[in-house]
């Protein structure tokens, strides 16, 4: 898994590539905590090059979403979600909890 973090004025974009499984999910959780601990709660996850996400990874996404949405201070949105990843999100019943954008520009524009 590779993480590429870009800080914008109004939000943070994290590009997640490769595999998010039980081995790598803790690193994703750590990166998102680092952003939230800095008081930044508007996060775009660019999933263009995400090949695989297990339930461990999905738990990180839902945990970050719960934290960001607390006190209406922000939210996590998803961009470039590939069909297999979308199937996993859907099966987990997580799609209603995330805004999903076709590309990163529209996702950033949401904030």
């Amino acid at each position, binding site marked *: 898994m590779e993480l590429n973090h870009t800080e914008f004025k109004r939000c943070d974009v994290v590009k997640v590539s490769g595999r998010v499984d*039980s081995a790598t999910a803790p690193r994703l959780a750590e990166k998102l905590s680092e952003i939230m601990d800095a008081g930044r709660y508007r996060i775009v996850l660019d999933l263009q090059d995400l090949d*695989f996400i297990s*339930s461990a990874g999905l738990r990180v996404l839902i945990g970050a979403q719960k934290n960001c949405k607390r006190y209406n201070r922000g939210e996590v949105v998803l961009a470039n979600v590939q069909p297999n990843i979308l199937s996993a999100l859907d099966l987990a019943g997580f799609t209603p909890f995330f805004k999903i954008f076709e590309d990163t520009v529209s996702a950033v524009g949401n904030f």
Partner: protein
Amino acid sequence: MPTFVFPGKYESLAKIAELVQIATREFGLDSCAAYGVETAVDEACSNIIEHAYGGENRGEIEFSYEITSNSLIITLRDQGKKFKPKKIEKPKTNVPLKNRSDHGLGLYFIHQWMDEVHYDHREGYNILTLIKHKGTMNT
């Protein structure tokens, strides 16, 4: 049926996934069905490490697969704590985010993505058999 043995640690998951990809390609599954099988095996192996062994580096995971005319049969064996399958519950989607539980998702995924799931315990081994048929939904 070739058997591959991996140390029971999370780093093994990516290596096991490579074997799953070879098996699903050989069997001729489409991308979505292949992704589902990869997910089921990943969740099963994560459960072996976390629940059967109670942590990393406490035992091995044996992976083998067999392809018949109509089925891909994947077998996982471990010598961890005997597995007692729980009731599989569909995630509740009609609850607010803050009440949404994320537990039991792995087991749910395994049962959703595979056509047949069998548990057995023989001679000190947990034996999990995951079967995907051709011509079912997602193939």
